[in-house]
Each structure stands twice: as structure tokens, then as C-alpha cells.
């Protein structure tokens, strides 16, 4: 479970690594580095993130917490898609750029010829 601690100029987030991998955490908080300074401290089973404002503007903590929760889920979803589909993606690209028959395969299923085009199965 995520734990948030509000500070004067920053927000501290404690993230269990059992919920979100370090890859997901980095990819997610990368997008916060445009507007904030972000510090990452990785411990054995959790990661502490501190998001620090660069200006004197007050942090809207409610907005930021809600956005972080939503973004972490999105980046975890992306990570799952990316990992689960890595092999098939590699195959799609290999087939796309293959000039030989190395990655080609016969279309599946039985081919019949009811109209009489005289299509021959190889």
C-alpha cells in the first residue's frame, strides 16, 4: 500500500516493491521531473520517493496524490503489456523486415475450393 507524507515543500511517497517494481517506479516518476525535483531511495523491500517543488508555489497535495496513484497503475499496466508481449512483438518486427522466408509460415487451416479457382495447396 502507498503511504504519503506531506512536507512543507515536498511530498514523500513510500512504495512497497511487492506492489510496484523499480522499473515501473522509475518510468512513472520520470514524467514528474519536468516540474519537480525527484529523489529516489531504494531500500530492500520498498522505495521512498520525494517530490520537491522548485518554486515557492504551494503543492496541491490532493491532486498530486491522486495523480500519482493513477499514474502508477497506468505504468504498471504498460509494464505488464510490454513484458507479456515482448516475444510476439519481436516476431512481428522480425517478420516485417525479413526479406527471406525465414519467418514466414503457411496460413493456418484447411483450404478448400468450392468455387473452382483450382488453388493448389503447397
Amino acid at each position, binding site marked *: 500500500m502507498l503511504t504519503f507524507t506531506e512536507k512543507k515543500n515536498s511530498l514523500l511517497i513510500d512504495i512497497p516493491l511487492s506492489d510496484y517494481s523499480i522499473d515501473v517506479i522509475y*518510468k512513472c516518476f*520520470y*514524467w*514528474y*521531473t*519536468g*516540474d519537480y525535483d525527484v529523489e529516489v531511495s531504494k531500500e530492500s523491500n520498498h522505495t521512498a520517493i520525494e517530490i520537491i517543488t522548485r518554486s515557492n508555489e504551494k503543492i496541491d497535495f490532493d491532486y498530486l496524490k491522486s495523480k500519482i496513484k493513477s499514474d502508477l*497503475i*497506468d*505504468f504498471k*499496466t*504498460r*509494464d*505488464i*503489456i*510490454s513484458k*507479456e*508481449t515482448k516475444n*510476439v*512483438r519481436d*516476431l*512481428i*518486427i522480425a*517478420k*516485417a*523486415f525479413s526479406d527471406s522466408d525465414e*519467418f*514466414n*509460415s503457411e*496460413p*493456418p*487451416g*484447411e*483450404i*478448400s*475450393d*468450392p*468455387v473452382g*479457382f483450382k*488453388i493448389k495447396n503447397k
Partner: protein
Amino acid sequence: MSRKFKESSYYQKGNTNYYLLPFKFHKINDLTEVLVNEVGEYLFVDNGTANRIINREIEFESNLYKDLISNFFISEKPIPDLIDIISNKYRSKKSFINEFTSLHIFVVSLRCDHTCHYCQVSRVSEDQNKYDMSKSDIDIAISHMLRSKSDHVTMEFQGGEPLLAFDKIKYGVDKAKELNKKYNKEITFVICTNLVSVTKEILNFCKEHNILISTSYDGPQYIHDKNRLYTKGSSHKKVLKGIDLSRKILGHDRVSALMTTTNLTLDYPLEIIDDYYKNGFRNIFLRPISPYGFALKSPKKNKYVTEKFLEFYKKGLMHIIDMNKKGIYFSEDYATIILKKILTPFPVGYVDLQSPAGAINSVIVYNYDGYVYATDESRMLAETGDYSFRLGHLKKNSYDEIFFGKNASKFAYSFANESLPGCSECGLQAYCGADPVFHHASQGDVIGHRPSSGYCQKNMEIIRFILELISKEEYDTIFRSWVYKTSFSEKN
């Protein structure tokens, strides 16, 4: 030829044990997210659907399941039966790679009769020897152009003002045609000119050789003349006169115009569009503001300028859509480029939105002094003393050294947005591109920092905005008329 249906029990089992295919997603507003598969095909769904898909919560009986299967977002087998179809679509999307370097820009002269404040390259000078391209350099550049793998190349003459060196254009066109007898490529000739010094003789030559004219036109006189300072009077009057003469001799459709966006421009989107229409144009390119004339490495200023541009762009685009709704055919070029990427299976030859990047892969610039640059912006950087994208010299380096040498290799690792931080999992990746020159110029790094990148801020928001409009079906006919260049008003 027929294929057999599976047994009826297969369709009754309520199977949610599907497999994922590669896809990405992006929220386009509070209610909707877009799913984009590996080949750029999209599906609008409720927010949170991507998460439901990975958690295997999509019901077999649902329409969404059928949409996801038929659009290659999920599969009932680990390797889908139609994987070759997906690969062929991927191959089509990236087919521009086979056209390696199709746009060849010849900077025949740096001399110019304008002193536009946004131009870093031109010189007001009569010294032809110093600022005009030599015939021997033109010869070598043409031979490089004809070595392109593409059957269709574009030879574009730029400046300065290229018509001040019209003898070099004539020489280049004649030489290219002569040498092309051996290669038999289709060559499109374009002259990018301010049209101030255009004459009937020049235009007759253009007509004879089927040369297109692309001119600079910034809209109403109070904007154009402030942006484009002409040393001998009103540039606006001269360019309109030149456009009129060019249309009469070459034909209306052989003359196009490009606008350069400046801080002044940003206050007048509607006035500029209406002025374009009034002067006979049926399209406009609301081009992004160039970072090359601004405080390049000031993220705060870049962000502000990009925000202002986005406001200008959206206001302009909605005005153009309203014109179309009233039966007036008029299109916006940047939206059309993005729409082609979203709505068609084909690649788009626009160098700023390509992955791998357009630099070298699609465009090359032969400068007046014989040096070769990766993009038009690269030579602008060179004028400020930054030679990072200078690939070599026509007389000192071979074709291979220029196109595949160590200078080109130095930044080729940043060409693919598929592997850039922040882009690699972005839902809009298929519609966007990589621009190492922009990121080097604005952030001092060819990879760039996506969260503070003006390129990213601009393109993500414009693509999101266009997707949001596509999701509302009322704009579909208008957008397709732009993509397929059919008049919406004529059809309706």
C-alpha cells in the same frame, strides 16, 4: 476458398484466457482512453479498459472482446494466426525506410533581399562567389541524389533567396535531367522562393520543367511585412503579385505557401487563415514556432512559447473545421499529416514526425559552401557555430562517408522513438516521431528530456486533441476529405 467455423462449444465456453498482443494506451480526456496497437490502429474505450484487459476482465461475449480480437489487441493463441498480416502492416508503416533519403535540399545561394528576423542563415550581399553554390558541388550533390534507393526523389532549391542564383537552378535542373537518363527516377523539382524577383522568363522555365513553387507567406500585410523585412518596400505586395503571376503561368495548384510562426503570428490565427482563403489558398500549414531563433536552452521560455502556440493552433484548427462545416473546403496541413498517420495504413513523408527520424533517412541538405547537413535546421545551427550535424563536404567526403560515416553514426542511436525514454511506452508513439536535432538545439542532448521537451509537449497535445476530435464522429467526413483530398462541400 473457404474456412471452417470452430465447433459450437468453442463459442459457448466464455473463455477469458486470451493472450495480449503489443499495444499502448493514452488518456485523451476524463472519460476516454485510446488503445493503439503496434501498427497504429486505434480503438476508443472507457478509461481503465487497458487495465481491465491485462487483468483478463473482458467478457468473451462482449462487443469489446470482438473489437479487441479483430483489431489485433488480444489473441486467442499465443501467436495469432494472422501474425503475417500484422507484420505486413508494420512493414507498410515503415516503408519510408526503403526510400532512403528522398528529399534533397540544394542551398544554391545564401544571398537574400529580405532580412527576416527569424532567419539565421541569409546574407544581404552581392558576392556571388562567396555565397553561391558552385557548379562542381551541384554536380556531386546530384550524383548523391541519384544514388538514393527511392524511385522518386525531390530536388528542392532553397536559399537565402534561390532566385537570386537562378542560373544555378537552371544548371541543376538541366544536369539532373541529363544524369537521370541512366537512373530513370521520377524527380520532383521545387523552388522555395519569396517570389520578389520572379519574372515571366523564370516561370516559363518552371513550366517547361514542371517545377513547383513554394513561397513564404505570413498572412495579412501587418503581419507579413513585420515578419519579413524587405529592403526595397512591402514584401507583402511583392509576394501576392508573384503568386498571381506564378498561378497564371504554372497553374493554380503548382503554387503553395508556407507560413512561419512568430510571436506576432500567435495573436492572429483567424485573421491569417481568412487571409489565406481570401488569396486563393485552400490549405494552410499552421507550423510550430521554431525554437532556433529563441533562447534555446531556456526550458521555462520554451514551455511558455509552446503553450501559446498550442492555444493558437487549436483556435486556428477549430476555425478551419467551422469553415468546412459551412461547406468551404479548406484544410490544415499539420492535422492532415497526423490524420494520415492515424487513419491510413501508410507512412507520411513529413520529416519532423518520423521514426526513425527524418534526418538523413528522408532529408539531406547540400549547403552553398559544399558542406552537407542532416536537416535544414542543422545548417541553421551551423550558422550559430554548432556543427554537430555537419556530415561532411561534397568534395572531401564520399557518399558513404557522408550518409553512413562517423558523423552520421554519432547521433543515429537517437533516431527511433520506440527506444527513447518516455516515448518507448507512450500511447501516441505510432503517430509521433523522433527529432534529435530539435532536442540537441533545445536541450543540449540528442535523446532529450521528454517531460520538459517542447517537441513532446507540442506533439502529445496536438495528437491528443486530434484524437479527441476523431472520437466525436461529427468531424469524420471533414477529416477524411483532408486525408484523401476530396472536397467535403462538393460531396455534400
